[in-house]
């Protein structure tokens, strides 16, 4: 197993195992279960953000809007139209894919900051539609009594533990899919676009189409997260589509580590718990939390995973250099540095010295 030697994947595995075991300790604590489950719903949307932002390098600020579409799709179909959860969930996923693709058609004509703020406007329009179109969405009254998933008589999803594992399994699938995308030729295409769009275009990559796919995929994950969120929480209001959600997701991904596999999950969990922890400060918690957010962005710009990855890389590099020195005293050190440098991209040259 080569994967076992990769510290990044090992870390991911550790996070997953810890999370999988969480219900053993928290099963009786509804509060902790709820916070973790809701956090995982957000994490799914954050994995979506990871595809468009982390892999492709395009900052989409519509993710909260897609999350809201997912939540309202499931919420409205299971209540006003009395569909079963699963059929509503699948239709909602298809729906967000369609909306995401359409939005992408216009949004991806713009670039960089224009793209960011344009998608922010899209997200805000989605929010306005949800909070104003009273006859369909019930506006501020919200959607009450969203159905639990049907367990077919085998599993009772009203139990928080069952719900936890449902979201957990879907989260794992989403993580695997994003991981697979990254490894696939599509993923490499996206990474090329992140590095340089012009270059990608020049070497024959279908830039527009690839970006379009990435945007739709990120919207779909947003919709999945939102749909699960609706059933976990049971009541949804327009705040589930608000711009604050987008910034929350962005914070999760930034704290965890952009473009990494474990980052979004770790970031979602840590920030969620940080927010809960500082609840005791009530109104004044943001006097503390605000500067913490700023400090994290400044001092750990590549997120926790990036930071830990840096430590691991440095250590393995030191080992390699030491090994090289031991085995062949006359070997050129530049050669070793260059080699390890290619393995660990993103580490600045200063650190090797």
């Amino acid at each position: 197993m080569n994967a076992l030697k990769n510290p990044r994947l090992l870390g991911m595995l550790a996070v997953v195992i810890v999370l999988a075991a969480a219900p053993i300790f928290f099963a009786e604590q509804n509060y902790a279960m709820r916070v973790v489950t809701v956090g995982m719903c957000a994490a799914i949307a954050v994995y979506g953000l990871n595809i468009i932002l982390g892999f492709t390098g395009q900052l989409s600020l519509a993710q909260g809007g897609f999350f809201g579409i997912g939540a309202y799709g499931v919420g409205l179909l299971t209540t006003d139209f009395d569909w079963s959860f699963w059929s509503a969930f699948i239709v909602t996923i298809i729906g967000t894919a369609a909306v995401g693709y359409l939005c992408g058609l216009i949004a991806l004509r713009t670039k960089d900051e224009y793209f960011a703020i344009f998608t922010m406007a899209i997200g805000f329009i989605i929010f306005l539609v949800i909070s104003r179109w009273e006859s369909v969405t019930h506006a501020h009254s919200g959607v009450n009594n969203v159905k639990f998933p049907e367990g077919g008589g085998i599993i009772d999803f009203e139990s928080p533990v069952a719900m936890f594992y449902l979201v957990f399994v879907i989260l794992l699938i989403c993580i695997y899919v994003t991981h697979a995308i990254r490894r696939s030729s599509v993923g490499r295409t996206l990474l090329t676009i992140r590095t340089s769009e012009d270059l990608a275009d020049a070497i024959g990559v279908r830039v527009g189409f690839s970006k379009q796919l990435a945007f739709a995929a990120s919207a779909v994950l947003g919709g999945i997260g939102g749909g699960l969120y609706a059933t976990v929480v049971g009541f949804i209001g327009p705040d589930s589509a608000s711009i604050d959600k987008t910034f929350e997701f962005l914070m999760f991904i930034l704290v965890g580590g952009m473009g990494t596999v474990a980052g979004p999950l770790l970031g979602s969990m840590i920030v969620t718990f940080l927010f809960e922890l500082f609840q005791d400060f009530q109104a004044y918690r943001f006097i503390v939390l605000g500067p913490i957010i700023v400090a994290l962005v400044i001092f750990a710009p590549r997120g926790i995973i990036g930071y830990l990855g840096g430590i691991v890389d440095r250590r393995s590099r030191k080992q390699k250099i030491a090994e090289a020195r031991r085995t062949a005293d006359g070997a050129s050190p530049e050669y070793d540095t260059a080699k390890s440098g290619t393995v660990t991209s993103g580490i600045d040259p200063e650190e090797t010295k």
Partner: protein
Amino acid sequence: MTLFIQQLFNGLALGGVYCLAAIGLTLVFGVLRIPNLAHGALYMLGAYLTYFFLTTIGVPYIAAIGIAAIMLFVVGVGLERLVFHPLRNSPHTHHMIAAVGAMFFFQALAQAIWGADFRRMDTPITGELRILGAEISAQRIVIIVVAVIVLALLAWFIKRSIHGQTIEAIEQDRVGASLVGINPSMVSMLTLGLSALLATIAAGLVAPINLLSPTMGDALNLKVFAIIILGGLGSLPGAIVGGFALAIAETMTATYISSGVGEAVAFIVLVAVLAIKPTGLFTKAVQR
């Protein structure tokens, strides 16, 4: 017709406020290349400081705005030094989140100092003017006039004064400007300070016709972003035209269609314009 005149003036007054707030934001974008999401929070702080000097200390209205504007200039410089300067080499995602962090901080701070209650700032400027049958309050006329004066001064400052020209130079070519001896760091500080100062003037003007609350900047924030994107990021004429156009579109759609559409019109126009011209109306050559 009276209604139309009335709403035109209401739209112009609103446009003045939007412009003053948008120009600062677009300047910051031109120089630092960051969308400063904390701009609305600076506007809010400016309003509270004006309130503090006018009501609590008791200095005259114009002086209160002036003192508050200078203090916010310092806050802006501090924000640049403490938050944006260390991030100058990071992608704009980081700026956005850092700015959101700063915004949370400012809002919580204002609530801690002044409380969550709405505050009313009484203006010494009272009375109405009757123009073509419409009742226009004097404060709104003041807003329009001051906005025009400040915009003219700003244009003079950027085009004619040494410090202002450095802003434009950095906007046009950062590397070239540093080669001829302009310090980009200083210009960044100056620009953020200036944007906070302009936001304070806008806030000081609009506060008497509205209420102060720690979240008063939120609604403005999104609209101002729509304006500068519409006008083209970093473009001064774009921000001015965009500000007045959106304000008038907003009041007119709210009057003749519905208030819901009025609220969304800024974003609908934005989506429509960008779908046709993805770089905004007044595009500057975007440099990296």
